[in-house]
């Protein structure tokens, strides 16, 4: 109580500033980043660079939005890299023989299926902690990646290898809808609205947050936590598949290792956005900010000419900062 009183006692401006820095630091960081880069490097605010940024964020955005639900439920999913690999190599290879719509659906189905397998592994082993989920999904990731390698024979596949129509994928990858607004951006908006409604307005979304907030209490008050665990992994798998499809549509090639690194970046984006690793509190909208910050940062650092190796260091620093802030909020 005392702490609350302490906070409420400050004048409104100080309080607003405190809330801004504590809860929306990521927004402040985005603003600072944009301002500095725009001054130092005029190329940053060109239309070309901005559309480039919007194109870039599609795949990571999808994966991170899916990951948000897993982390909300106080679990974690390291298998997204494996899922991306598998979805990409299977979906691209089916465009020729099956046609593009069945290939797309099959890709999504594989994503959801892999998520269901993750959930099944967690539920049957009785793993109820984030740490256990970490190892289990890490194991699943290697399994999915192995299947991707077996299926593709380790070969990179290209769009031009098949003569069948792939107009839909080309639109997803680099098409525009109105003016400079890309198709992938429209997909993002639609998906975001659906996920936001799912998270905040449905009973299942509530059940996921309650499960993440306290599994024992949720279970003892009659919430189906097993179903919540199943749902979060399926949603994450599905969103990961969508991310993989957007990614290979843009690059027009699929390698069996194209998902590498996405798991860490997605977790980074979710946590930096402000969804707590402890589960229960967070939002898909926060994740959007987190992804935006990461993409903007790498874009800015690229423009300024910072080496990729150093960029990894800044990512790590930001993650530590985010977790530090999160822990301060808990006290």
């Amino acid at each position: 109580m005392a702490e609350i009183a302490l906070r409420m006692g400050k004048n409104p401006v100080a309080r607003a500033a405190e809330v801004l820095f504590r809860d929306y630091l990521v927004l402040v960081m985005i603003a600072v980043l944009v301002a500095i880069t725009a001054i130092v490097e005029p190329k940053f605010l060109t239309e070309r660079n901005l559309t480039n940024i919007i194109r870039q964020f599609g795949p990571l955005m999808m994966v991170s939005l899916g990951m948000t639900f897993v982390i909300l439920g106080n679990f974690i999913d390291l298998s997204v890299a494996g899922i991306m690999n598998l979805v990409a190599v299977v979906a691209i290879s089916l465009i020729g023989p099956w046609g593009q719509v069945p290939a797309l659906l099959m890709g999504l189905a594989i994503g959801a299926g892999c998520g269901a397998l993750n959930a099944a592994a967690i539920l049957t082993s009785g793993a109820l902690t984030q740490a256990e989920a970490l190892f289990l999904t890490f194991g699943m990731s290697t399994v999915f990646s192995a299947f991707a390698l077996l299926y593709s024979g380790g070969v990179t596949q290209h769009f031009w290898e098949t003569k069948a129509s792939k107009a839909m994928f080309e639109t997803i990858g680099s098409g525009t809808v109105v003016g400079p607004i890309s198709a992938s951006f429209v997909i993002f908006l639609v998906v975001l609205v659906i996920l936001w409604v799912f998270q905040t307005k449905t009973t299942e979304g509530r059940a996921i947050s309650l499960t993440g907030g306290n599994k024992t209490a949720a279970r003892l008050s009659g919430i189906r936590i097993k179903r919540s665990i199943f749902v979060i992994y399926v949603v994450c798998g599905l969103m990961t598949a969508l991310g993989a499809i957007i990614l290979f549509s843009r690059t027009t090639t699929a390698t069996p290792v194209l998902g590498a690194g996405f798991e860490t970046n997605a977790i980074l984006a979710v946590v930096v956005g402000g969804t707590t690793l402890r589960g229960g509190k967070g939002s898909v909208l926060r994740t959007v900010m987190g992804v935006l910050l990461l993409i903007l940062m790498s874009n800015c650092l690229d423009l300024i000419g910072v080496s990729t190796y150093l960029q990894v260091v800044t990512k790590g620093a930001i993650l530590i900062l985010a977790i530090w802030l999160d822990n301060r909020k808990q006290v």
Partner: protein
Amino acid sequence: MAAGGSEVILSIRDVSKSFPGVKALDRVSIDVRRGIVHGIVGENGAGKSTLMKILSGVYQKDGGTIEFDGAHVEHTSPHESMQSGLAIIYQELNLVNTMSVGENVFLGRFKEMKGMRGTHAKARELLDSIGCKVPTTRLVADLSVSEKQMVEICKALSFSSKLIIMDEPSSSLTGEEMAQLVTIIRQLKEKGISIIYISHKLDEIFQFCDVVSVMRDGRVVDTKAVAEFTRNELISKMVGRTIENEYPPRPHSVGDVVMEVRSINTHKLHDVSFTLHKGEILGLVGLVGAGRTEIVRAIYGADKARGHEVLLGGKPVVIRTPRHAKELGIGLIPEDRKLQGLVLIFSVESNISMGSIRKFSRFGFIRRSLEKGIGARQVEALSIKTPSARTGVSNLSGGNQQKVIVGRWMEISPQIFIMDEPTRGIDVGAKYEIYLLMKRIVEAGGSIILISSELPEVLNMSNRVLTVFEGRITGEFDPEKTPVDEIMKAALGLEGGAA
């Protein structure tokens, strides 16, 4: 002041502490004399913990003076206060579970002890001095709560503390362990060490405190020798109003059997069978770990149990999950409010509504207006003290948090209410309100299974009492007609009995 030595070891003079909007301490003055046990009682929020945090250096006082052992004190950190000879043993003990007893006593001071051999030897000496036989090499994780407490006490002694503050030390001790703590406290007294004993339990205050200070709303309302207080006087000083009884009169309209349980067997339970009647409060009495909680968890579907039969209103049912139990009209208030009952990061409202999601949703979509109604209704009905229904439940006092869990179930009004330690760690006033709620439930035709480590509570609230010992039911008693020691004997497994 009548009892205790004459020399004042700790003198708190006009200490105040404000948090913006709240005066947590208002010119508090307490003198603690050498070699006595000084009780501090008060409801939650009375300022006890703020005072302790100032003494230990967690908070800084706004005004007033504190003299400890003849010197002015301006502690700025808990470590500093420990060094000066003032130790605090918190309710949630601060030990490292994965380290040994000896290592915990001298944590961070191995060098001073000349290595691990010295550490263990010195720890042994300290443990022996309070009559604790636990090996110094044992892991703290393997100790019982009372043994852990002894380790904490040794840690305090290792700093040659002159004053030890114990914050609700008995909240998770059994009767036997409590007796041991009392012995230790007496030994400490003989050594000239003063003890500040913070507790909700009046029995303890009367049993071994010499002087007691009553706090209310940030003030010390009275300090007297314990002998000069009557029980009712102490209670009314604490709550600021007169409470006629600690327990409401027992309801008496017990009806037909609503639930029958036949032979529950798990690795901890052996052939547990009993019946529960409509409108009845059935008490389960036994030591911590006797299997009381396991019995109700097995019925509720929270733990796996095999081969047992449950009949609800004469019909056999199989309850596999808590959700299933809920649908059949059974509600559980778990023993650990914070770990098992509440989702602490959520609001009062969400914590109430989480048991009845179906009631405020349609086609899987939440209808906020209905949810708000549920929250407001229970906050009102149970007079939960909270700034608003959207306030985080973690900001509420223990008693009000417990009411939130009760409210969660009241919303779906289960036929059978299982309450596991419903009043643990909450103050007298809030306890009475919980008792009234229990009465309201049974009068409305519900039934309650009550588990409590506070014997007077079970005996005064229950219509019927079952004693549990090592996973078996060892007796059934009418608490109104049976002498307490007979029930205790059965609970300790000394002899069987039936009424």
